[in-house]
Protein backbone atom coordinates (compact mmCIF):
# COMPACT_ATOMS: atom_id res chain seq x y z
CA UNK A 1 0.00 0.00 0.00
CA UNK A 2 1.65 3.17 -1.16
CA UNK A 3 1.52 6.21 1.00
CA UNK A 4 1.25 9.34 -1.06
CA UNK A 5 4.30 11.45 -0.79
CA UNK A 6 3.25 14.35 1.38
CA UNK A 7 6.26 16.44 0.47
CA UNK A 8 5.73 19.99 1.23
CA UNK A 9 2.79 19.23 3.50
CA UNK A 10 4.49 20.82 6.46
CA UNK A 11 4.61 24.16 4.72
CA UNK A 12 1.11 23.81 3.28
CA UNK A 13 -0.68 25.99 5.79
CA UNK A 14 1.88 28.74 5.28
CA UNK A 15 1.62 28.38 1.49
CA UNK A 16 -2.13 28.32 1.48
CA UNK A 17 -2.29 31.38 3.58
CA UNK A 18 -0.27 33.23 0.99
CA UNK A 19 -2.97 34.61 -1.23
CA UNK A 20 -0.94 35.13 -4.45
CA UNK A 21 0.29 31.55 -4.74
CA UNK A 22 -3.10 30.09 -3.92
CA UNK A 23 -4.14 29.95 -7.56
CA UNK A 24 -0.93 28.07 -8.57
CA UNK A 25 -0.01 25.88 -5.67
CA UNK A 26 -3.43 24.58 -4.82
CA UNK A 27 -4.29 23.14 -8.27
CA UNK A 28 -0.77 21.65 -8.48
CA UNK A 29 -1.09 20.04 -5.09
CA UNK A 30 -4.57 18.75 -5.82
CA UNK A 31 -3.58 17.17 -9.13
CA UNK A 32 -0.46 15.65 -7.62
CA UNK A 33 -2.56 14.19 -4.83
CA UNK A 34 -4.91 12.66 -7.36
CA UNK A 35 -2.01 11.52 -9.55
CA UNK A 36 -0.21 9.72 -6.76
CA UNK A 37 -3.26 8.49 -4.94
CA UNK A 38 -3.82 4.77 -4.28
CA UNK A 39 -6.16 2.66 -6.41
CA UNK A 40 -8.79 2.82 -7.84
CA UNK A 41 -7.44 5.89 -9.56
CA UNK A 42 -4.45 4.03 -11.23
CA UNK A 43 -3.58 5.35 -14.70
CA UNK A 44 -1.09 2.53 -15.59
CA UNK A 45 -1.91 0.61 -18.77
CA UNK A 46 -0.45 -2.77 -19.62
CA UNK A 47 -0.06 -4.65 -22.91
CA UNK A 48 -3.01 -6.89 -23.72
CA UNK A 49 -2.69 -10.53 -24.63
CA UNK A 50 -5.64 -12.66 -25.64
CA UNK A 51 -5.63 -15.64 -23.36
CA UNK A 52 -8.14 -18.30 -22.52
CA UNK A 53 -9.84 -17.94 -19.11
CA UNK A 54 -7.81 -18.89 -16.02
CA UNK A 55 -8.16 -22.51 -14.95
CA UNK A 56 -10.14 -21.97 -11.76
CA UNK A 57 -11.32 -24.94 -9.77
CA UNK A 58 -15.08 -25.47 -9.94
CA UNK A 59 -16.93 -22.90 -7.83
CA UNK A 60 -13.80 -21.09 -6.62
CA UNK A 61 -14.32 -17.82 -8.46
CA UNK A 62 -15.43 -15.18 -7.63
CA UNK A 63 -13.49 -15.38 -4.37
CA UNK A 64 -15.44 -12.46 -2.96
CA UNK A 65 -18.44 -14.78 -2.53
CA UNK A 66 -16.79 -15.91 0.69
CA UNK A 67 -14.14 -13.33 1.34
CA UNK A 68 -16.29 -10.21 1.04
CA UNK A 69 -17.78 -11.00 4.42
CA UNK A 70 -14.50 -12.02 6.00
CA UNK A 71 -11.86 -9.85 7.53
CA UNK A 72 -8.35 -10.16 6.15
CA UNK A 73 -6.00 -11.49 8.83
CA UNK A 74 -2.59 -10.21 7.82
CA UNK A 75 -0.43 -12.48 9.93
CA UNK A 76 1.51 -15.15 8.05
CA UNK A 77 0.27 -18.54 9.23
CA UNK A 78 -0.61 -22.01 8.08
CA UNK A 79 -4.22 -22.22 6.91
CA UNK A 80 -6.21 -24.79 8.85
CA UNK A 81 -9.83 -24.24 7.90
CA UNK A 82 -9.91 -23.72 4.14
CA UNK A 83 -7.53 -23.88 1.20
CA UNK A 84 -5.73 -26.62 3.09
CA UNK A 85 -4.90 -28.45 -0.16
CA UNK A 86 -2.77 -25.56 -1.34
CA UNK A 87 0.90 -26.27 -0.69
CA UNK A 88 2.84 -23.08 -1.02
CA UNK A 89 6.22 -23.88 -2.52
CA UNK A 90 7.01 -20.65 -4.21
CA UNK A 91 9.46 -18.51 -2.26
CA UNK A 92 7.41 -19.47 0.79
CA UNK A 93 10.13 -18.45 3.23
CA UNK A 94 9.96 -14.88 2.02
CA UNK A 95 6.24 -14.35 1.54
CA UNK A 96 2.79 -15.80 1.80
CA UNK A 97 -0.74 -15.57 0.34
CA UNK A 98 -1.46 -11.92 0.85
CA UNK A 99 1.74 -10.84 -0.86
CA UNK A 100 0.10 -11.73 -4.16
CA UNK A 101 -3.60 -11.83 -3.37
CA UNK A 102 -5.08 -8.44 -2.46
CA UNK A 103 -6.38 -8.69 1.07
CA UNK A 104 -9.23 -6.22 0.65
CA UNK A 105 -10.51 -7.76 -2.57
CA UNK A 106 -9.73 -11.40 -3.20
CA UNK A 107 -10.96 -11.17 -6.79
CA UNK A 108 -7.81 -9.26 -7.59
CA UNK A 109 -4.08 -9.79 -7.48
CA UNK A 110 -1.77 -6.98 -6.54
CA UNK A 111 1.41 -5.79 -8.17
CA UNK A 112 4.42 -4.15 -6.50
CA UNK A 113 3.31 -0.72 -7.65
CA UNK A 114 -0.01 -1.13 -5.91
CA UNK A 115 -2.03 -1.78 -9.06
CA UNK A 116 -4.71 -4.38 -8.87
CA UNK A 117 -5.11 -6.76 -11.77
CA UNK A 118 -7.68 -9.37 -12.56
CA UNK A 119 -6.78 -13.06 -12.72
CA UNK A 120 -6.80 -13.09 -16.51
CA UNK A 121 -3.74 -10.80 -16.40
CA UNK A 122 -1.86 -12.83 -13.84
CA UNK A 123 1.17 -12.89 -16.14
CA UNK A 124 1.90 -9.35 -15.02
CA UNK A 125 2.31 -10.57 -11.47
CA UNK A 126 4.53 -13.49 -12.40
CA UNK A 127 6.53 -11.20 -14.65
CA UNK A 128 7.48 -8.97 -11.74
CA UNK A 129 9.92 -11.55 -10.41
CA UNK A 130 10.38 -13.68 -13.50
CA UNK A 131 11.32 -10.81 -15.76
CA UNK A 132 13.39 -12.71 -18.28
CA UNK A 133 10.75 -15.36 -18.74
CA UNK A 134 8.09 -12.69 -18.99
CA UNK A 135 10.05 -11.04 -21.80
CA UNK A 136 10.33 -14.40 -23.57
CA UNK A 137 6.65 -15.13 -23.03
CA UNK A 138 5.65 -11.82 -24.54
CA UNK A 139 7.78 -12.57 -27.59
CA UNK A 140 6.02 -15.90 -27.81
CA UNK A 141 8.96 -18.12 -27.07
CA UNK A 142 8.21 -19.24 -23.57
CA UNK A 143 5.78 -22.00 -23.03
CA UNK A 144 3.48 -24.10 -25.09
CA UNK A 145 2.61 -22.74 -28.48
CA UNK A 146 -0.67 -23.67 -30.01
CA UNK A 147 -2.85 -22.73 -32.90
CA UNK A 148 -1.63 -20.15 -35.38
CA UNK A 149 1.77 -18.49 -35.30
CA UNK A 150 1.03 -15.65 -37.67
CA UNK A 151 -1.69 -13.73 -39.45
CA UNK A 152 -2.87 -11.91 -36.36
CA UNK A 153 -4.23 -15.12 -34.93
CA UNK A 154 -1.52 -15.75 -32.34
CA UNK A 155 -2.80 -16.92 -28.98
CA UNK A 156 -1.16 -17.17 -25.62
CA UNK A 157 -1.70 -19.25 -22.56
CA UNK A 158 -1.53 -17.89 -19.03
CA UNK A 159 1.36 -18.96 -16.87
CA UNK A 160 -1.07 -20.77 -14.65
CA UNK A 161 -2.32 -22.92 -17.51
CA UNK A 162 0.93 -24.89 -17.23
CA UNK A 163 2.36 -23.91 -13.84
CA UNK A 164 0.51 -24.26 -10.58
CA UNK A 165 1.07 -20.79 -9.14
CA UNK A 166 1.42 -22.07 -5.59
CA UNK A 167 3.77 -24.93 -6.46
CA UNK A 168 5.06 -24.10 -9.91
CA UNK A 169 7.84 -26.66 -10.37
CA UNK A 170 6.84 -29.11 -13.15
CA UNK A 171 6.29 -32.61 -11.98
CA UNK A 172 8.02 -35.51 -13.72
CA UNK A 173 5.71 -37.43 -16.04
CA UNK A 174 5.65 -40.90 -17.49
CA UNK A 175 7.30 -40.97 -20.90
CA UNK A 176 5.64 -42.46 -23.95
CA UNK A 177 7.04 -45.86 -24.90
CA UNK A 178 10.38 -46.17 -26.69
CA UNK A 179 10.44 -47.21 -30.35
CA UNK A 180 10.45 -50.93 -31.16
CA UNK A 181 13.96 -52.28 -31.34
CA UNK A 182 15.00 -53.52 -34.76
CA UNK A 183 15.03 -57.30 -34.43
CA UNK A 184 18.45 -58.65 -33.84
CA UNK A 185 20.00 -61.69 -32.29
CA UNK A 186 21.99 -59.91 -29.58
CA UNK A 187 21.16 -56.80 -27.64
CA UNK A 188 24.37 -56.04 -25.89
CA UNK A 189 24.47 -52.23 -25.66
Amino acid at each position, binding site marked *: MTIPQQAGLISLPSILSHGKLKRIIFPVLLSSLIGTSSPPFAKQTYEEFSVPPPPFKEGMFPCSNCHASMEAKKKKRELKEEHTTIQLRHAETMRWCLDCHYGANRDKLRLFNGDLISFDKSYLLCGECHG*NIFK*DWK*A*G*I*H*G*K*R*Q*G*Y*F*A*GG*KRTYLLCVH*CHDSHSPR*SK*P*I*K*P*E*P*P*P*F*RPKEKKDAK
Partner: protein
Amino acid sequence: MRNRSYTRREFIRNLSLTVLSGFALPLLSSCAKEQVEDFLQKHFLEMTNDEKEALIAKLEARYLNKYGKKFKVSVQEAIPNTLWGYGLDLSRCIGCRRCVYACVEENNSSRFKPQSQWIRVIRLKKGSLVDLEDSEHYYNPDQVPEKDFIYMPVQCQHCEKPPCVKVCPVHATWKEPDGLVVVDYNWCIGCRYCIAACPYRGRIFNWADPNVPAEKWNLSVHYLGNRPRMRNVVDKCTYCIQRVRAGRYPACVEVCPTGSRKFGNLLDPQSEIRYVIENKRTFRLKEDLHTEPKFYYFFEA
Protein backbone atom coordinates in the same frame (compact mmCIF):
# COMPACT_ATOMS: atom_id res chain seq x y z
CA MET B 1 21.13 -88.25 -89.43
CA ARG B 2 21.85 -84.56 -89.79
CA ASN B 3 18.21 -83.85 -90.62
CA ARG B 4 16.93 -85.60 -87.53
CA SER B 5 19.22 -83.65 -85.16
CA TYR B 6 18.17 -80.42 -86.89
CA THR B 7 14.52 -81.28 -86.20
CA ARG B 8 15.32 -81.90 -82.54
CA ARG B 9 17.13 -78.57 -82.24
CA GLU B 10 14.32 -76.81 -84.03
CA PHE B 11 11.84 -78.35 -81.64
CA ILE B 12 13.77 -77.13 -78.64
CA ARG B 13 14.03 -73.67 -80.12
CA ASN B 14 10.32 -73.42 -80.90
CA LEU B 15 9.40 -74.68 -77.48
CA SER B 16 11.57 -72.15 -75.65
CA LEU B 17 10.22 -69.26 -77.69
CA THR B 18 6.64 -70.30 -76.98
CA VAL B 19 7.28 -70.56 -73.27
CA LEU B 20 8.89 -67.13 -73.20
CA SER B 21 5.99 -65.49 -75.00
CA GLY B 22 3.62 -67.37 -72.71
CA PHE B 23 5.24 -65.65 -69.74
CA ALA B 24 4.84 -62.24 -71.32
CA LEU B 25 1.10 -62.46 -72.02
CA PRO B 26 -0.22 -62.46 -68.44
CA LEU B 27 1.96 -59.47 -67.66
CA LEU B 28 0.43 -57.53 -70.51
CA SER B 29 -3.18 -58.39 -69.76
CA SER B 30 -3.02 -57.79 -66.02
CA CYS B 31 -1.89 -54.21 -66.47
CA ALA B 32 -5.01 -52.39 -65.45
CA LYS B 33 -5.55 -48.88 -66.72
CA GLU B 34 -4.84 -47.61 -63.21
CA GLN B 35 -1.45 -49.24 -63.06
CA VAL B 36 -0.50 -47.90 -66.46
CA GLU B 37 -1.55 -44.42 -65.38
CA ASP B 38 0.50 -44.72 -62.21
CA PHE B 39 3.46 -46.01 -64.16
CA LEU B 40 3.39 -43.03 -66.49
CA GLN B 41 2.71 -40.37 -63.85
CA LYS B 42 4.82 -37.26 -64.29
CA HIS B 43 7.13 -35.70 -61.76
CA PHE B 44 5.15 -33.42 -59.48
CA LEU B 45 7.19 -30.34 -60.35
CA GLU B 46 6.47 -30.83 -64.03
CA MET B 47 2.71 -30.98 -63.62
CA THR B 48 0.45 -28.16 -64.65
CA ASN B 49 -2.28 -26.98 -62.30
CA ASP B 50 -4.87 -28.97 -64.23
CA GLU B 51 -2.80 -32.11 -63.95
CA LYS B 52 -2.44 -31.51 -60.23
CA GLU B 53 -6.23 -31.16 -59.92
CA ALA B 54 -6.71 -34.42 -61.78
CA LEU B 55 -4.11 -36.05 -59.57
CA ILE B 56 -5.87 -34.88 -56.40
CA ALA B 57 -9.19 -36.21 -57.67
CA LYS B 58 -7.59 -39.55 -58.54
CA LEU B 59 -5.90 -39.86 -55.17
CA GLU B 60 -8.99 -38.88 -53.19
CA ALA B 61 -11.04 -41.45 -55.10
CA ARG B 62 -8.41 -44.08 -54.53
CA TYR B 63 -8.13 -43.36 -50.80
CA LEU B 64 -11.90 -43.53 -50.49
CA ASN B 65 -11.85 -46.87 -52.20
CA LYS B 66 -8.95 -48.29 -50.24
CA TYR B 67 -9.50 -46.86 -46.75
CA GLY B 68 -13.18 -45.90 -46.84
CA LYS B 69 -12.39 -42.33 -45.78
CA LYS B 70 -12.79 -39.02 -47.52
CA PHE B 71 -9.33 -37.51 -47.55
CA LYS B 72 -8.76 -33.91 -48.49
CA VAL B 73 -5.53 -33.71 -50.48
CA SER B 74 -3.92 -30.30 -50.78
CA VAL B 75 -1.17 -29.19 -53.13
CA GLN B 76 -0.86 -25.77 -51.55
CA GLU B 77 2.27 -24.04 -52.69
CA ALA B 78 4.84 -22.26 -50.60
CA ILE B 79 3.83 -18.90 -49.22
CA PRO B 80 6.11 -16.21 -50.69
CA ASN B 81 8.77 -14.70 -48.42
CA THR B 82 8.80 -17.58 -45.99
CA LEU B 83 11.65 -19.73 -44.82
CA TRP B 84 10.59 -22.07 -42.05
CA GLY B 85 12.87 -22.46 -39.06
CA TYR B 86 12.59 -24.52 -35.94
CA GLY B 87 13.86 -24.02 -32.41
CA LEU B 88 14.33 -26.58 -29.70
CA ASP B 89 14.98 -25.62 -26.06
CA LEU B 90 17.25 -28.30 -24.68
CA SER B 91 16.99 -26.90 -21.18
CA ARG B 92 13.31 -27.73 -21.18
CA CYS B 93 12.97 -31.00 -23.10
CA ILE B 94 12.14 -33.74 -20.63
CA GLY B 95 12.20 -36.64 -23.08
CA CYS B 96 8.54 -37.50 -22.70
CA ARG B 97 8.21 -38.44 -26.40
CA ARG B 98 4.78 -36.79 -26.74
CA CYS B 99 6.13 -35.13 -29.88
CA VAL B 100 7.01 -38.48 -31.45
CA TYR B 101 3.51 -39.83 -31.12
CA ALA B 102 1.76 -36.57 -31.97
CA CYS B 103 3.76 -36.57 -35.20
CA VAL B 104 2.79 -40.16 -35.92
CA GLU B 105 -0.90 -39.33 -35.42
CA GLU B 106 -0.84 -36.13 -37.46
CA ASN B 107 1.17 -37.57 -40.33
CA ASN B 108 -0.48 -40.95 -40.81
CA SER B 109 2.70 -42.87 -40.12
CA SER B 110 2.70 -46.62 -39.86
CA ARG B 111 2.16 -47.84 -36.28
CA PHE B 112 3.62 -51.33 -36.60
CA LYS B 113 5.21 -53.63 -39.18
CA PRO B 114 7.00 -51.34 -39.65
CA GLN B 115 6.83 -48.70 -36.93
CA SER B 116 7.60 -45.37 -38.61
CA GLN B 117 8.61 -42.51 -36.36
CA TRP B 118 9.97 -39.36 -37.93
CA ILE B 119 11.19 -37.97 -34.61
CA ARG B 120 13.74 -39.81 -32.51
CA VAL B 121 14.41 -38.58 -28.96
CA ILE B 122 17.83 -39.46 -27.68
CA ARG B 123 19.12 -39.28 -24.13
CA LEU B 124 22.56 -37.82 -23.55
CA LYS B 125 24.71 -37.60 -20.46
CA LYS B 126 25.16 -34.24 -18.82
CA GLY B 127 28.71 -33.08 -19.17
CA SER B 128 29.35 -34.48 -22.64
CA LEU B 129 26.45 -33.15 -24.50
CA VAL B 130 26.72 -33.88 -28.14
CA ASP B 131 28.57 -37.19 -27.99
CA LEU B 132 25.99 -38.92 -30.11
CA GLU B 133 27.82 -42.22 -30.01
CA ASP B 134 26.97 -42.43 -26.33
CA SER B 135 23.28 -41.79 -26.81
CA GLU B 136 20.49 -43.96 -25.53
CA HIS B 137 17.44 -44.31 -27.76
CA TYR B 138 15.41 -46.84 -25.83
CA TYR B 139 15.28 -45.28 -22.37
CA ASN B 140 12.07 -46.19 -20.59
CA PRO B 141 12.09 -45.02 -16.97
CA ASP B 142 8.96 -44.57 -14.92
CA GLN B 143 9.30 -40.82 -14.98
CA VAL B 144 11.13 -38.24 -16.97
CA PRO B 145 13.25 -36.21 -16.75
CA GLU B 146 15.90 -38.39 -15.14
CA LYS B 147 18.69 -36.79 -13.18
CA ASP B 148 22.09 -36.47 -14.94
CA PHE B 149 20.62 -36.68 -18.41
CA ILE B 150 19.36 -34.31 -21.03
CA TYR B 151 17.12 -35.21 -23.92
CA MET B 152 17.50 -34.23 -27.53
CA PRO B 153 14.80 -34.89 -30.09
CA VAL B 154 16.11 -35.20 -33.64
CA GLN B 155 14.13 -35.06 -36.87
CA CYS B 156 14.72 -33.86 -40.39
CA GLN B 157 16.69 -30.63 -40.03
CA HIS B 158 15.50 -29.17 -43.34
CA CYS B 159 19.00 -28.20 -44.32
CA GLU B 160 19.65 -25.32 -46.63
CA LYS B 161 22.27 -27.46 -48.37
CA PRO B 162 20.64 -30.85 -48.04
CA PRO B 163 22.92 -33.79 -48.82
CA CYS B 164 19.87 -35.96 -49.47
CA VAL B 165 18.71 -33.71 -52.31
CA LYS B 166 22.19 -33.79 -53.81
CA VAL B 167 22.37 -37.58 -54.00
CA CYS B 168 18.86 -38.53 -55.09
CA PRO B 169 19.32 -40.05 -58.56
CA VAL B 170 15.85 -39.13 -59.79
CA HIS B 171 15.09 -35.74 -58.19
CA ALA B 172 12.39 -37.35 -56.08
CA THR B 173 13.33 -35.11 -53.18
CA TRP B 174 13.95 -31.39 -53.38
CA LYS B 175 13.92 -28.20 -51.37
CA GLU B 176 10.77 -26.15 -51.73
CA PRO B 177 10.95 -22.33 -51.98
CA ASP B 178 9.92 -22.04 -48.34
CA GLY B 179 12.86 -24.18 -47.27
CA LEU B 180 11.03 -27.45 -46.68
CA VAL B 181 12.74 -30.55 -48.02
CA VAL B 182 10.00 -32.76 -49.44
CA VAL B 183 9.59 -36.10 -51.21
CA ASP B 184 7.31 -36.94 -54.12
CA TYR B 185 6.29 -40.40 -52.98
CA ASN B 186 5.06 -41.31 -56.45
CA TRP B 187 8.44 -40.57 -57.99
CA CYS B 188 10.78 -42.17 -55.44
CA ILE B 189 12.41 -45.38 -56.63
CA GLY B 190 13.36 -46.55 -53.16
CA CYS B 191 17.13 -46.76 -53.62
CA ARG B 192 17.70 -45.33 -50.10
CA TYR B 193 20.76 -43.36 -51.11
CA CYS B 194 19.26 -40.30 -49.39
CA ILE B 195 18.97 -42.19 -46.11
CA ALA B 196 22.65 -43.14 -46.40
CA ALA B 197 23.47 -39.50 -47.09
CA CYS B 198 21.53 -37.93 -44.22
CA PRO B 199 23.73 -37.13 -41.22
CA TYR B 200 20.78 -36.76 -38.84
CA ARG B 201 18.55 -39.82 -39.29
CA GLY B 202 16.06 -37.43 -40.81
CA ARG B 203 14.67 -39.85 -43.34
CA ILE B 204 13.23 -43.31 -42.93
CA PHE B 205 11.94 -45.96 -45.25
CA ASN B 206 8.50 -47.50 -45.62
CA TRP B 207 9.56 -51.11 -45.46
CA ALA B 208 5.98 -52.28 -46.08
CA ASP B 209 2.56 -50.77 -46.71
CA PRO B 210 1.77 -48.58 -43.68
CA ASN B 211 -0.45 -49.99 -40.96
CA VAL B 212 -2.68 -47.26 -39.57
CA PRO B 213 -5.78 -48.03 -37.49
CA ALA B 214 -8.87 -47.03 -39.46
CA GLU B 215 -10.18 -44.52 -36.93
CA LYS B 216 -6.80 -42.78 -36.59
CA TRP B 217 -6.41 -41.47 -40.12
CA ASN B 218 -5.82 -37.72 -40.32
CA LEU B 219 -7.90 -36.72 -43.32
CA SER B 220 -6.37 -33.30 -44.10
CA VAL B 221 -3.31 -34.20 -46.03
CA HIS B 222 -0.83 -32.57 -48.37
CA TYR B 223 0.48 -34.35 -51.45
CA LEU B 224 4.07 -33.77 -50.38
CA GLY B 225 3.41 -34.43 -46.72
CA ASN B 226 1.19 -36.68 -44.73
CA ARG B 227 -0.94 -38.38 -47.33
CA PRO B 228 -1.14 -42.16 -47.07
CA ARG B 229 2.14 -43.49 -48.37
CA MET B 230 2.94 -46.76 -50.08
CA ARG B 231 5.59 -49.38 -49.43
CA ASN B 232 9.20 -49.09 -50.56
CA VAL B 233 9.45 -45.31 -50.64
CA VAL B 234 11.23 -42.86 -48.38
CA ASP B 235 9.49 -40.38 -46.10
CA LYS B 236 10.43 -37.76 -43.54
CA CYS B 237 9.34 -34.89 -41.39
CA THR B 238 7.91 -32.06 -43.49
CA TYR B 239 7.46 -29.56 -40.62
CA CYS B 240 3.80 -30.52 -41.07
CA ILE B 241 3.58 -28.89 -44.49
CA GLN B 242 -0.18 -29.28 -44.37
CA ARG B 243 -0.30 -27.08 -41.25
CA VAL B 244 2.46 -24.52 -41.65
CA ARG B 245 1.39 -23.37 -45.06
CA ALA B 246 -1.94 -22.51 -43.42
CA GLY B 247 -0.19 -20.65 -40.61
CA ARG B 248 -0.58 -23.32 -37.93
CA TYR B 249 2.15 -24.75 -35.73
CA PRO B 250 3.40 -28.26 -36.51
CA ALA B 251 1.86 -31.00 -34.39
CA CYS B 252 5.05 -31.59 -32.40
CA VAL B 253 5.21 -27.91 -31.40
CA GLU B 254 1.60 -27.94 -30.21
CA VAL B 255 1.80 -31.05 -28.13
CA CYS B 256 5.05 -30.38 -26.29
CA PRO B 257 4.01 -30.05 -22.63
CA THR B 258 7.03 -28.00 -21.57
CA GLY B 259 6.98 -25.65 -24.55
CA SER B 260 10.43 -26.71 -25.71
CA ARG B 261 9.59 -26.39 -29.38
CA LYS B 262 9.51 -23.14 -31.32
CA PHE B 263 8.62 -22.49 -34.91
CA GLY B 264 8.40 -19.57 -37.24
CA ASN B 265 9.43 -17.76 -40.38
CA LEU B 266 13.14 -16.99 -40.45
CA LEU B 267 12.52 -14.14 -42.88
CA ASP B 268 10.12 -12.37 -40.54
CA PRO B 269 12.11 -10.28 -38.05
CA GLN B 270 9.19 -10.38 -35.62
CA SER B 271 8.89 -14.15 -35.60
CA GLU B 272 9.46 -16.33 -32.57
CA ILE B 273 12.33 -18.22 -34.18
CA ARG B 274 14.17 -15.01 -34.99
CA TYR B 275 13.80 -13.91 -31.39
CA VAL B 276 15.30 -17.22 -30.28
CA ILE B 277 18.26 -16.92 -32.61
CA GLU B 278 18.92 -13.33 -31.62
CA ASN B 279 18.45 -13.68 -27.87
CA LYS B 280 19.40 -17.24 -27.00
CA ARG B 281 22.55 -19.22 -27.56
CA THR B 282 21.70 -21.44 -30.51
CA PHE B 283 23.66 -24.15 -32.23
CA ARG B 284 22.91 -26.74 -34.89
CA LEU B 285 23.90 -30.37 -35.07
CA LYS B 286 27.01 -31.40 -36.96
CA GLU B 287 27.65 -27.88 -38.21
CA ASP B 288 31.06 -28.99 -39.46
CA LEU B 289 29.29 -30.85 -42.25
CA HIS B 290 28.08 -27.52 -43.65
CA THR B 291 24.59 -28.76 -44.32
CA GLU B 292 23.19 -25.50 -42.84
CA PRO B 293 20.25 -27.01 -40.98
CA LYS B 294 17.28 -24.81 -40.12
CA PHE B 295 16.74 -26.62 -36.84
CA TYR B 296 18.23 -24.56 -34.01
CA TYR B 297 18.91 -26.10 -30.64
CA PHE B 298 19.31 -23.68 -27.79
CA PHE B 299 19.54 -23.32 -24.05
CA GLU B 300 17.86 -20.85 -21.84
CA ALA B 301 20.32 -17.91 -21.89
